Protein backbone atom coordinates (compact mmCIF):
# COMPACT_ATOMS: atom_id res chain seq x y z
CA UNK A 1 0.00 0.00 0.00
CA UNK A 2 1.42 3.40 -0.99
CA UNK A 3 1.73 6.10 1.64
CA UNK A 4 0.37 9.43 0.48
CA UNK A 5 0.89 12.65 2.41
CA UNK A 6 -1.83 15.23 1.79
CA UNK A 7 -0.29 18.65 2.49
CA UNK A 8 -2.59 21.59 3.15
CA UNK A 9 -2.87 24.89 5.00
CA UNK A 10 0.23 27.07 5.06
CA UNK A 11 0.86 30.79 5.26
CA UNK A 12 -1.48 32.18 2.64
CA UNK A 13 -4.60 34.31 2.28
CA UNK A 14 -6.10 31.22 0.67
CA UNK A 15 -5.48 29.05 3.74
CA UNK A 16 -9.18 28.34 4.27
CA UNK A 17 -9.69 27.37 0.64
CA UNK A 18 -6.80 24.94 1.02
CA UNK A 19 -8.47 23.30 4.04
CA UNK A 20 -11.71 22.90 2.07
CA UNK A 21 -9.83 21.34 -0.87
CA UNK A 22 -8.02 18.94 1.46
CA UNK A 23 -11.25 17.82 3.10
CA UNK A 24 -13.09 17.47 -0.22
CA UNK A 25 -10.26 15.60 -1.89
CA UNK A 26 -9.02 13.63 1.11
CA UNK A 27 -12.38 12.08 1.85
CA UNK A 28 -12.45 10.51 -1.63
CA UNK A 29 -8.86 9.26 -1.69
CA UNK A 30 -8.91 5.69 -3.08
CA UNK A 31 -8.50 3.10 -0.39
CA UNK A 32 -5.49 1.47 -1.99
CA UNK A 33 -3.50 4.41 -0.58
CA UNK A 34 -2.80 5.12 3.06
CA UNK A 35 -3.50 8.81 3.52
CA UNK A 36 -1.64 11.02 6.01
CA UNK A 37 -3.29 14.46 6.02
CA UNK A 38 -0.59 16.88 7.18
CA UNK A 39 -1.67 20.40 8.02
CA UNK A 40 0.80 23.29 8.00
CA UNK A 41 0.42 26.25 10.31
CA UNK A 42 3.02 28.76 11.51
CA UNK A 43 5.91 26.56 10.46
CA UNK A 44 4.57 23.52 12.30
CA UNK A 45 3.22 20.34 10.70
CA UNK A 46 0.28 18.53 12.22
CA UNK A 47 -1.76 15.38 11.93
CA UNK A 48 -4.96 17.10 13.03
CA UNK A 49 -7.50 15.29 15.19
CA UNK A 50 -10.82 15.16 13.30
CA UNK A 51 -9.11 16.61 10.25
CA UNK A 52 -12.29 16.31 8.13
CA UNK A 53 -14.08 18.89 10.32
CA UNK A 54 -13.80 22.58 9.45
CA UNK A 55 -14.24 23.30 13.15
CA UNK A 56 -10.88 21.71 13.91
CA UNK A 57 -9.07 24.61 12.22
CA UNK A 58 -10.87 27.56 13.75
CA UNK A 59 -9.31 27.30 17.21
CA UNK A 60 -6.14 25.87 18.75
CA UNK A 61 -4.98 22.89 16.74
CA UNK A 62 -5.39 19.54 18.45
CA UNK A 63 -3.49 16.61 17.10
CA UNK A 64 0.00 15.31 16.71
CA UNK A 65 3.00 17.28 15.53
CA UNK A 66 4.91 15.55 12.77
CA UNK A 67 8.00 16.23 10.71
CA UNK A 68 8.59 15.67 7.02
CA UNK A 69 12.03 15.28 5.48
CA UNK A 70 13.96 13.18 2.98
CA UNK A 71 13.59 10.07 5.14
CA UNK A 72 9.82 10.36 5.17
CA UNK A 73 7.13 11.41 7.61
CA UNK A 74 8.17 11.22 11.25
CA UNK A 75 5.19 10.45 13.46
CA UNK A 76 6.45 10.10 17.03
CA UNK A 77 9.20 7.49 16.95
CA UNK A 78 7.86 5.97 13.74
CA UNK A 79 9.08 7.02 10.30
CA UNK A 80 6.72 6.42 7.39
CA UNK A 81 8.17 6.12 3.91
CA UNK A 82 6.44 8.67 1.68
CA UNK A 83 5.53 7.51 -1.84
CA UNK A 84 3.78 10.69 -2.91
CA UNK A 85 2.95 14.14 -1.57
CA UNK A 86 -0.48 15.28 -2.71
CA UNK A 87 -0.45 19.08 -2.66
CA UNK A 88 -3.64 20.82 -1.70
CA UNK A 89 -2.07 24.16 -0.82
CA UNK A 90 -3.39 27.33 -2.40
CA UNK A 91 -1.50 30.57 -2.76
CA UNK A 92 1.57 31.73 -0.87
CA UNK A 93 4.39 29.37 -0.07
CA UNK A 94 2.40 26.30 -1.02
CA UNK A 95 1.76 27.23 -4.64
CA UNK A 96 4.55 29.61 -5.60
CA UNK A 97 7.31 27.01 -5.82
CA UNK A 98 8.80 27.27 -2.35
CA UNK A 99 7.14 24.14 -1.01
CA UNK A 100 7.84 22.38 -4.32
CA UNK A 101 11.54 23.30 -3.96
CA UNK A 102 11.61 21.79 -0.50
CA UNK A 103 10.06 18.57 -1.79
CA UNK A 104 12.55 18.49 -4.67
CA UNK A 105 15.37 18.95 -2.17
CA UNK A 106 14.07 16.01 -0.14
CA UNK A 107 13.51 13.93 -3.25
CA UNK A 108 9.83 13.31 -2.48
CA UNK A 109 7.53 12.90 -5.52
CA UNK A 110 4.71 15.44 -5.50
CA UNK A 111 1.63 16.23 -7.55
CA UNK A 112 2.12 19.67 -8.99
CA UNK A 113 4.29 21.70 -11.36
CA UNK A 114 7.99 22.04 -10.64
CA UNK A 115 9.26 25.05 -8.63
CA UNK A 116 10.12 27.14 -11.68
CA UNK A 117 6.76 26.72 -13.46
CA UNK A 118 4.88 27.15 -10.16
CA UNK A 119 6.77 30.36 -9.43
CA UNK A 120 6.21 31.84 -12.88
CA UNK A 121 2.52 30.96 -13.02
CA UNK A 122 1.91 32.20 -9.48
CA UNK A 123 3.08 35.67 -10.40
CA UNK A 124 0.52 37.13 -12.80
CA UNK A 125 2.98 39.73 -14.13
CA UNK A 126 5.65 37.17 -15.03
CA UNK A 127 3.05 34.66 -16.21
CA UNK A 128 1.61 37.20 -18.63
CA UNK A 129 4.96 37.96 -20.23
CA UNK A 130 5.90 34.27 -20.48
CA UNK A 131 2.52 33.36 -21.97
CA UNK A 132 2.77 36.23 -24.44
CA UNK A 133 6.29 35.23 -25.42
CA UNK A 134 5.08 31.65 -26.01
CA UNK A 135 2.38 32.88 -28.39
CA UNK A 136 -0.74 32.74 -26.20
CA UNK A 137 -3.24 35.58 -26.40
CA UNK A 138 -3.47 37.60 -23.18
CA UNK A 139 -5.19 40.88 -22.31
CA UNK A 140 -2.84 43.89 -22.65
CA UNK A 141 -1.15 44.99 -19.43
CA UNK A 142 -0.29 48.59 -18.52
CA UNK A 143 2.34 50.14 -16.29
CA UNK A 144 0.92 51.20 -12.93
CA UNK A 145 1.51 54.86 -13.80
CA UNK A 146 -0.28 54.80 -17.15
CA UNK A 147 -3.53 52.86 -17.11
CA UNK A 148 -5.99 53.04 -20.02
CA UNK A 149 -9.48 52.75 -18.57
CA UNK A 150 -11.31 50.53 -17.92
CA UNK A 151 -8.71 48.40 -16.16
CA UNK A 152 -8.72 45.50 -13.76
CA UNK A 153 -6.24 45.57 -10.89
CA UNK A 154 -5.02 42.32 -9.33
CA UNK A 155 -2.48 41.45 -6.64
CA UNK A 156 0.23 39.66 -8.63
CA UNK A 157 0.63 36.59 -6.45
CA UNK A 158 -2.82 35.83 -5.09
CA UNK A 159 -5.70 33.73 -6.29
CA UNK A 160 -9.39 33.17 -5.52
CA UNK A 161 -10.16 36.74 -6.75
CA UNK A 162 -8.93 38.19 -3.45
CA UNK A 163 -8.05 41.89 -3.76
CA UNK A 164 -9.24 42.17 -7.39
CA UNK A 165 -10.94 45.42 -8.44
CA UNK A 166 -12.20 47.12 -11.62
CA UNK A 167 -11.54 50.82 -12.25
CA UNK A 168 -13.17 53.08 -14.85
CA UNK A 169 -11.70 56.38 -13.70
CA UNK A 170 -8.79 57.70 -11.70
CA UNK A 171 -10.52 57.71 -8.34
CA UNK A 172 -11.65 54.09 -8.70
CA UNK A 173 -8.17 53.22 -9.90
CA UNK A 174 -6.50 54.67 -6.81
CA UNK A 175 -8.91 52.72 -4.61
CA UNK A 176 -8.42 49.48 -6.52
CA UNK A 177 -4.65 49.91 -6.44
CA UNK A 178 -4.63 50.57 -2.69
CA UNK A 179 -6.84 47.54 -2.13
CA UNK A 180 -4.64 45.24 -4.24
CA UNK A 181 -1.45 46.56 -2.62
CA UNK A 182 -2.83 45.58 0.78
CA UNK A 183 -2.35 41.98 -0.33
CA UNK A 184 0.77 42.15 -2.49
CA UNK A 185 3.45 44.77 -3.22
CA UNK A 186 3.44 43.68 -6.86
CA UNK A 187 0.25 44.48 -8.77
CA UNK A 188 -0.97 43.66 -12.27
CA UNK A 189 -2.93 46.32 -14.15
CA UNK A 190 -4.52 45.05 -17.33
CA UNK A 191 -7.27 45.96 -19.75
CA UNK A 192 -10.73 45.11 -18.41
CA UNK A 193 -12.61 43.17 -21.06
CA UNK A 194 -16.13 44.48 -20.54
CA UNK A 195 -18.80 41.79 -20.98
CA UNK A 196 -16.33 38.96 -21.51
CA UNK A 197 -17.54 35.41 -20.88
CA UNK A 198 -15.38 33.32 -18.57
CA UNK A 199 -14.53 29.69 -19.28
CA UNK A 200 -12.52 27.29 -17.15
CA UNK A 201 -10.85 24.14 -18.37
CA UNK A 202 -8.59 21.75 -16.44
CA UNK A 203 -5.95 19.35 -17.68
CA UNK A 204 -3.91 16.49 -16.31
CA UNK A 205 -1.17 14.23 -17.61
CA UNK A 206 -1.68 10.47 -17.42
CA UNK A 207 1.48 8.81 -18.69
CA UNK A 208 1.91 9.98 -22.27
CA UNK A 209 -1.68 11.15 -22.56
CA UNK A 210 -3.22 14.48 -21.69
CA UNK A 211 -6.68 14.36 -20.11
CA UNK A 212 -8.64 17.54 -20.77
CA UNK A 213 -11.72 18.16 -18.61
CA UNK A 214 -15.10 19.51 -19.60
CA UNK A 215 -15.38 23.29 -19.91
CA UNK A 216 -17.26 25.24 -17.30
CA UNK A 217 -18.81 28.69 -17.53
CA UNK A 218 -19.30 30.49 -14.21
CA UNK A 219 -22.27 32.82 -14.53
CA UNK A 220 -21.56 35.64 -12.16
CA UNK A 221 -23.14 38.97 -11.51
CA UNK A 222 -21.11 42.19 -11.42
CA UNK A 223 -17.81 42.93 -13.14
CA UNK A 224 -15.74 40.12 -11.73
CA UNK A 225 -16.09 36.63 -10.39
CA UNK A 226 -15.65 37.39 -6.68
CA UNK A 227 -14.45 35.25 -3.79
CA UNK A 228 -18.03 35.03 -2.48
CA UNK A 229 -19.36 33.90 -5.86
CA UNK A 230 -16.63 31.29 -6.11
CA UNK A 231 -16.97 29.72 -2.71
CA UNK A 232 -20.26 30.76 -1.18
CA UNK A 233 -22.56 29.44 -3.88
CA UNK A 234 -23.61 32.89 -5.04
CA UNK A 235 -22.96 31.94 -8.63
CA UNK A 236 -24.25 29.34 -11.04
CA UNK A 237 -21.92 27.17 -13.07
CA UNK A 238 -22.89 25.88 -16.48
CA UNK A 239 -21.13 22.55 -16.81
CA UNK A 240 -20.61 21.62 -19.58
CA UNK A 241 -20.73 25.21 -20.83
CA UNK A 242 -22.99 25.75 -23.83
CA UNK A 243 -20.83 26.96 -26.74
CA UNK A 244 -20.03 26.37 -30.38
CA UNK A 245 -17.99 23.30 -31.20
CA UNK A 246 -15.28 25.46 -32.76
CA UNK A 247 -14.73 27.42 -29.56
CA UNK A 248 -14.80 24.23 -27.48
CA UNK A 249 -12.09 22.74 -29.64
CA UNK A 250 -10.04 25.94 -29.46
CA UNK A 251 -10.20 26.01 -25.66
CA UNK A 252 -9.20 22.35 -25.37
CA UNK A 253 -6.40 22.75 -27.91
CA UNK A 254 -5.04 25.89 -26.21
CA UNK A 255 -5.18 24.18 -22.80
CA UNK A 256 -3.18 21.21 -24.08
CA UNK A 257 -0.55 23.32 -25.81
CA UNK A 258 -0.20 25.61 -22.78
CA UNK A 259 0.29 22.58 -20.50
CA UNK A 260 3.03 21.26 -22.76
CA UNK A 261 4.66 24.62 -23.50
CA UNK A 262 5.01 25.53 -19.82
CA UNK A 263 6.13 22.00 -18.85
CA UNK A 264 3.29 21.67 -16.35
CA UNK A 265 2.64 18.65 -14.13
CA UNK A 266 -0.33 17.47 -12.11
CA UNK A 267 -3.71 19.14 -12.47
CA UNK A 268 -3.70 22.62 -13.97
CA UNK A 269 -6.78 24.75 -14.56
CA UNK A 270 -6.70 27.43 -17.22
CA UNK A 271 -9.17 30.31 -16.95
CA UNK A 272 -10.13 32.02 -20.20
CA UNK A 273 -12.01 35.15 -21.16
CA UNK A 274 -13.91 35.16 -24.44
CA UNK A 275 -14.40 38.69 -25.69
CA UNK A 276 -15.56 39.86 -29.13
CA UNK A 277 -14.51 36.66 -30.88
CA UNK A 278 -11.08 36.44 -29.22
CA UNK A 279 -10.07 33.89 -26.60
CA UNK A 280 -7.73 35.32 -23.95
CA UNK A 281 -5.79 33.26 -21.42
CA UNK A 282 -6.68 34.94 -18.15
CA UNK A 283 -4.97 32.85 -15.50
CA UNK A 284 -3.29 29.49 -14.98
CA UNK A 285 -3.79 27.72 -11.66
CA UNK A 286 -1.19 25.09 -10.82
CA UNK A 287 -3.15 23.78 -7.81
CA UNK A 288 -6.81 24.51 -8.62
CA UNK A 289 -9.54 24.52 -5.95
CA UNK A 290 -10.75 20.98 -5.10
CA UNK A 291 -8.30 20.00 -7.90
CA UNK A 292 -11.14 20.72 -10.34
CA UNK A 293 -12.75 17.34 -9.75
CA UNK A 294 -16.16 18.61 -10.86
CA UNK A 295 -14.73 19.55 -14.26
CA UNK A 296 -13.14 16.13 -14.67
CA UNK A 297 -16.28 14.45 -13.32
CA UNK A 298 -18.27 15.98 -16.18
CA UNK A 299 -15.75 14.43 -18.58
CA UNK A 300 -16.26 10.98 -17.06
CA UNK A 301 -13.20 10.95 -14.78
CA UNK A 302 -14.37 10.27 -11.23
CA UNK A 303 -12.55 11.86 -8.31
CA UNK A 304 -11.10 8.49 -7.26
CA UNK A 305 -9.67 7.96 -10.73
CA UNK A 306 -8.39 11.54 -10.83
CA UNK A 307 -6.52 11.06 -7.56
CA UNK A 308 -5.15 7.69 -8.70
CA UNK A 309 -3.78 9.28 -11.88
CA UNK A 310 -2.32 12.18 -9.90
CA UNK A 311 -0.62 9.94 -7.36
CA UNK A 312 0.66 7.39 -9.87
CA UNK A 313 2.09 10.14 -12.10
CA UNK A 314 3.62 12.19 -9.29
CA UNK A 315 7.18 13.02 -10.04
CA UNK A 316 10.29 14.70 -8.82
CA UNK A 317 13.37 15.69 -10.79
CA UNK A 318 15.89 12.88 -10.36
CA UNK A 319 18.87 14.06 -8.37
CA UNK A 320 21.97 14.35 -10.55
CA UNK A 321 24.58 11.70 -9.79
CA UNK A 322 27.67 13.72 -8.99
CA UNK A 323 31.07 12.07 -8.75
CA UNK A 324 32.63 14.12 -6.03
CA UNK A 325 36.31 15.01 -6.36
CA UNK A 326 36.73 13.72 -9.90
CA UNK A 327 37.84 17.07 -11.29
CA UNK A 328 39.81 18.18 -8.26
CA UNK A 329 43.15 16.81 -9.46
CA UNK A 330 42.86 18.67 -12.78
CA UNK A 331 41.75 21.88 -11.08
CA UNK A 332 44.55 21.78 -8.54
CA UNK A 333 46.97 21.10 -11.42
CA UNK A 334 45.64 24.13 -13.29
CA UNK A 335 46.15 26.38 -10.23
CA UNK A 336 49.77 25.42 -10.01
Amino acid at each position, binding site marked *: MKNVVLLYGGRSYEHDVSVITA*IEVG*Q*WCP*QQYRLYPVYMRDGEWWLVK*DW*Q*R*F*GSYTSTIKGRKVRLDDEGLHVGIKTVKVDCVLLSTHGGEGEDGRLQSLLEWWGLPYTSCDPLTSGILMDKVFAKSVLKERGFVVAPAYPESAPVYPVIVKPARLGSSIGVGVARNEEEYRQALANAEDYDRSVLVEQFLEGAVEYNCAILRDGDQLLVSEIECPRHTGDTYTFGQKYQKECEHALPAPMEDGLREEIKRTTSSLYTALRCKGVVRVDYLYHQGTLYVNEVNTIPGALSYRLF*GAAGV*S*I*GKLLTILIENASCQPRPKVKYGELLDDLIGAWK
Partner: protein
Amino acid sequence: MFCVRQGQGQEVLYLHGWGCSHEVFASCRNPSFCETLPDLYGFGETPAPTHPVDLDYYVEGVKRLMDRYYMQNVVVVAHSFGARIAVRLAATSPHVVGLVLVGAAGMRPRRGVKYLARVAHAKLAKLFRLRPPEGSEDYRRLSGAMKGTFVNIVHTYQEKELSRVTVPVLLVWGAEDKETPPYMLKRFEKGLPLSRTVWMERCGHFCFAQQPDRFRRLVATFVEELQ
Protein backbone atom coordinates in the same frame (compact mmCIF):
# COMPACT_ATOMS: atom_id res chain seq x y z
CA MET B 1 -44.57 -2.32 3.38
CA PHE B 2 -45.59 0.84 1.51
CA CYS B 3 -42.95 2.32 -0.73
CA VAL B 4 -42.37 4.94 -3.41
CA ARG B 5 -40.28 3.80 -6.36
CA GLN B 6 -39.17 6.10 -9.13
CA GLY B 7 -36.52 6.66 -11.78
CA GLN B 8 -34.01 4.58 -13.66
CA GLY B 9 -30.34 3.82 -13.18
CA GLN B 10 -28.43 2.85 -10.07
CA GLU B 11 -30.70 1.25 -7.43
CA VAL B 12 -30.76 3.41 -4.30
CA LEU B 13 -32.79 2.39 -1.26
CA TYR B 14 -33.56 5.05 1.36
CA LEU B 15 -34.30 3.97 4.94
CA HIS B 16 -35.68 6.66 7.20
CA GLY B 17 -35.18 7.16 10.92
CA TRP B 18 -37.48 6.47 13.88
CA GLY B 19 -40.67 8.53 13.84
CA CYS B 20 -40.19 9.70 10.24
CA SER B 21 -41.42 8.47 6.86
CA HIS B 22 -40.06 8.34 3.31
CA GLU B 23 -40.94 12.02 2.96
CA VAL B 24 -37.98 13.00 5.12
CA PHE B 25 -35.75 12.38 2.07
CA ALA B 26 -37.88 14.53 -0.25
CA SER B 27 -35.36 17.38 -0.53
CA CYS B 28 -32.29 15.29 -1.29
CA ARG B 29 -33.59 12.84 -3.89
CA ASN B 30 -31.74 12.40 -7.16
CA PRO B 31 -33.73 11.77 -10.37
CA SER B 32 -30.73 10.08 -12.02
CA PHE B 33 -31.12 7.04 -9.73
CA CYS B 34 -33.75 4.33 -9.47
CA GLU B 35 -34.93 5.26 -6.00
CA THR B 36 -36.96 3.15 -3.59
CA LEU B 37 -38.28 4.83 -0.46
CA PRO B 38 -40.23 2.57 1.89
CA ASP B 39 -42.19 3.58 4.96
CA LEU B 40 -40.91 1.22 7.65
CA TYR B 41 -43.39 -0.71 9.85
CA GLY B 42 -45.36 1.62 12.08
CA PHE B 43 -44.47 4.80 10.20
CA GLY B 44 -46.02 6.78 7.33
CA GLU B 45 -48.39 4.66 5.26
CA THR B 46 -47.22 1.28 6.58
CA PRO B 47 -49.25 -0.10 9.50
CA ALA B 48 -47.58 -1.04 12.77
CA PRO B 49 -47.02 -4.73 13.60
CA THR B 50 -49.61 -6.33 15.86
CA HIS B 51 -47.02 -7.46 18.39
CA PRO B 52 -43.65 -6.07 19.50
CA VAL B 53 -41.01 -6.95 16.93
CA ASP B 54 -37.23 -6.73 16.77
CA LEU B 55 -34.64 -5.46 14.30
CA ASP B 56 -34.67 -8.71 12.29
CA TYR B 57 -38.36 -8.21 11.52
CA TYR B 58 -37.56 -4.86 9.88
CA VAL B 59 -34.56 -6.33 8.04
CA GLU B 60 -36.67 -9.19 6.67
CA GLY B 61 -39.34 -6.71 5.60
CA VAL B 62 -36.77 -4.70 3.63
CA LYS B 63 -35.35 -7.88 2.09
CA ARG B 64 -38.84 -8.89 0.93
CA LEU B 65 -39.24 -5.44 -0.60
CA MET B 66 -35.93 -5.84 -2.44
CA ASP B 67 -37.06 -9.25 -3.73
CA ARG B 68 -40.40 -7.82 -4.84
CA TYR B 69 -38.64 -5.37 -7.18
CA TYR B 70 -35.75 -7.73 -8.07
CA MET B 71 -33.35 -5.16 -6.66
CA GLN B 72 -29.68 -5.95 -7.14
CA ASN B 73 -26.49 -3.92 -6.66
CA VAL B 74 -28.27 -1.65 -4.24
CA VAL B 75 -26.77 1.38 -2.52
CA VAL B 76 -28.56 1.92 0.80
CA VAL B 77 -28.88 5.45 2.13
CA ALA B 78 -29.97 5.19 5.74
CA HIS B 79 -30.61 7.66 8.51
CA SER B 80 -30.48 7.01 12.25
CA PHE B 81 -32.70 3.97 13.00
CA GLY B 82 -32.66 3.12 9.28
CA ALA B 83 -28.88 2.67 9.64
CA ARG B 84 -29.45 -0.15 12.12
CA ILE B 85 -31.41 -1.97 9.43
CA ALA B 86 -28.86 -1.05 6.76
CA VAL B 87 -25.92 -2.44 8.74
CA ARG B 88 -27.64 -5.78 9.29
CA LEU B 89 -28.85 -5.83 5.70
CA ALA B 90 -25.32 -5.23 4.38
CA ALA B 91 -23.99 -7.96 6.66
CA THR B 92 -26.51 -10.53 5.42
CA SER B 93 -27.59 -9.60 1.88
CA PRO B 94 -25.35 -10.07 -1.17
CA HIS B 95 -27.35 -7.47 -3.09
CA VAL B 96 -26.11 -4.47 -1.10
CA VAL B 97 -23.03 -2.89 -2.74
CA GLY B 98 -22.62 0.26 -0.69
CA LEU B 99 -23.91 2.05 2.41
CA VAL B 100 -24.38 5.72 3.12
CA LEU B 101 -25.06 6.04 6.85
CA VAL B 102 -26.26 9.40 8.10
CA GLY B 103 -26.36 10.15 11.83
CA ALA B 104 -26.42 6.40 12.29
CA ALA B 105 -27.72 4.70 15.43
CA GLY B 106 -26.85 1.24 16.69
CA MET B 107 -23.84 1.89 18.89
CA ARG B 108 -24.01 1.51 22.65
CA PRO B 109 -24.56 5.01 24.09
CA ARG B 110 -22.51 6.49 26.90
CA ARG B 111 -24.56 6.42 30.07
CA GLY B 112 -24.27 9.34 32.45
CA VAL B 113 -25.27 9.80 36.08
CA LYS B 114 -28.66 11.14 35.01
CA TYR B 115 -29.45 7.90 33.18
CA LEU B 116 -28.32 5.73 36.12
CA ALA B 117 -30.49 7.78 38.45
CA ARG B 118 -33.49 7.26 36.18
CA VAL B 119 -32.88 3.50 36.08
CA ALA B 120 -32.56 3.37 39.88
CA HIS B 121 -35.75 5.41 40.19
CA ALA B 122 -37.62 3.04 37.89
CA LYS B 123 -36.38 -0.07 39.71
CA LEU B 124 -37.26 1.29 43.13
CA ALA B 125 -40.69 2.41 41.89
CA LYS B 126 -41.29 -1.11 40.57
CA LEU B 127 -40.17 -2.65 43.88
CA PHE B 128 -42.44 -0.44 45.96
CA ARG B 129 -45.25 -0.47 43.38
CA LEU B 130 -45.09 3.29 42.88
CA ARG B 131 -45.59 5.22 39.64
CA PRO B 132 -42.49 4.69 37.47
CA PRO B 133 -40.82 7.62 35.67
CA GLU B 134 -41.98 8.29 32.12
CA GLY B 135 -39.87 6.97 29.27
CA SER B 136 -38.12 9.02 26.59
CA GLU B 137 -40.05 11.35 24.31
CA ASP B 138 -39.84 8.85 21.43
CA TYR B 139 -41.22 6.14 23.72
CA ARG B 140 -44.05 8.28 25.06
CA ARG B 141 -45.26 9.14 21.57
CA LEU B 142 -45.79 5.45 20.74
CA SER B 143 -48.71 3.21 21.42
CA GLY B 144 -49.46 -0.51 21.44
CA ALA B 145 -46.93 -2.90 19.99
CA MET B 146 -44.62 -0.08 18.88
CA LYS B 147 -43.66 0.60 22.52
CA GLY B 148 -42.28 -2.92 22.90
CA THR B 149 -40.69 -2.65 19.46
CA PHE B 150 -38.94 0.56 20.47
CA VAL B 151 -37.51 -1.09 23.60
CA ASN B 152 -36.26 -4.05 21.53
CA ILE B 153 -34.67 -1.76 18.96
CA VAL B 154 -32.88 0.65 21.30
CA HIS B 155 -31.37 -2.26 23.19
CA THR B 156 -29.87 -3.77 20.05
CA TYR B 157 -26.19 -2.86 19.83
CA GLN B 158 -24.37 -3.61 16.62
CA GLU B 159 -20.67 -2.98 17.29
CA LYS B 160 -19.85 -6.63 16.59
CA GLU B 161 -21.89 -6.73 13.38
CA LEU B 162 -19.75 -4.04 11.78
CA SER B 163 -16.94 -6.51 11.07
CA ARG B 164 -19.34 -8.42 8.80
CA VAL B 165 -19.94 -5.37 6.60
CA THR B 166 -17.57 -5.73 3.67
CA VAL B 167 -19.04 -3.17 1.29
CA PRO B 168 -17.79 0.44 1.00
CA VAL B 169 -19.38 2.75 3.55
CA LEU B 170 -19.78 6.52 3.59
CA LEU B 171 -20.45 7.97 7.04
CA VAL B 172 -22.12 11.36 6.99
CA TRP B 173 -22.45 13.20 10.27
CA GLY B 174 -23.82 16.54 11.40
CA ALA B 175 -21.18 18.24 13.54
CA GLU B 176 -23.88 19.38 15.97
CA ASP B 177 -25.79 16.10 16.11
CA LYS B 178 -27.23 15.61 19.61
CA GLU B 179 -29.21 12.39 19.00
CA THR B 180 -26.28 10.39 17.72
CA PRO B 181 -23.30 12.38 19.05
CA PRO B 182 -19.93 12.32 17.24
CA TYR B 183 -18.50 9.72 19.67
CA MET B 184 -20.84 7.21 18.02
CA LEU B 185 -19.24 8.05 14.69
CA LYS B 186 -15.86 7.14 16.21
CA ARG B 187 -17.25 3.69 17.03
CA PHE B 188 -18.47 3.25 13.46
CA GLU B 189 -15.06 4.35 12.16
CA LYS B 190 -13.35 1.87 14.46
CA GLY B 191 -15.61 -0.98 13.35
CA LEU B 192 -15.46 -0.02 9.67
CA PRO B 193 -11.80 0.84 9.05
CA LEU B 194 -12.31 1.27 5.31
CA SER B 195 -15.21 3.69 5.62
CA ARG B 196 -15.04 7.35 4.61
CA THR B 197 -16.30 10.14 6.83
CA VAL B 198 -17.89 13.40 5.81
CA TRP B 199 -18.74 16.02 8.40
CA MET B 200 -21.50 18.50 7.74
CA GLU B 201 -20.75 21.63 9.68
CA ARG B 202 -23.51 23.60 11.39
CA CYS B 203 -25.88 20.68 10.94
CA GLY B 204 -27.66 18.45 13.39
CA HIS B 205 -29.16 14.96 13.25
CA PHE B 206 -31.04 15.73 10.03
CA CYS B 207 -27.98 17.05 8.20
CA PHE B 208 -29.14 15.62 4.85
CA ALA B 209 -32.25 17.80 4.97
CA GLN B 210 -30.30 20.85 6.16
CA GLN B 211 -27.81 20.69 3.27
CA PRO B 212 -29.70 18.69 0.63
CA ASP B 213 -27.63 19.83 -2.36
CA ARG B 214 -24.36 18.87 -0.73
CA PHE B 215 -25.80 15.56 0.44
CA ARG B 216 -27.09 14.76 -3.05
CA ARG B 217 -23.64 15.49 -4.49
CA LEU B 218 -22.00 13.30 -1.85
CA VAL B 219 -24.26 10.34 -2.66
CA ALA B 220 -23.73 10.86 -6.40
CA THR B 221 -19.93 10.92 -5.95
CA PHE B 222 -20.08 7.83 -3.73
CA VAL B 223 -22.12 5.95 -6.34
CA GLU B 224 -19.72 7.12 -9.06
CA GLU B 225 -16.78 5.80 -7.04
CA LEU B 226 -18.49 2.43 -6.59
CA GLN B 227 -18.83 2.07 -10.32
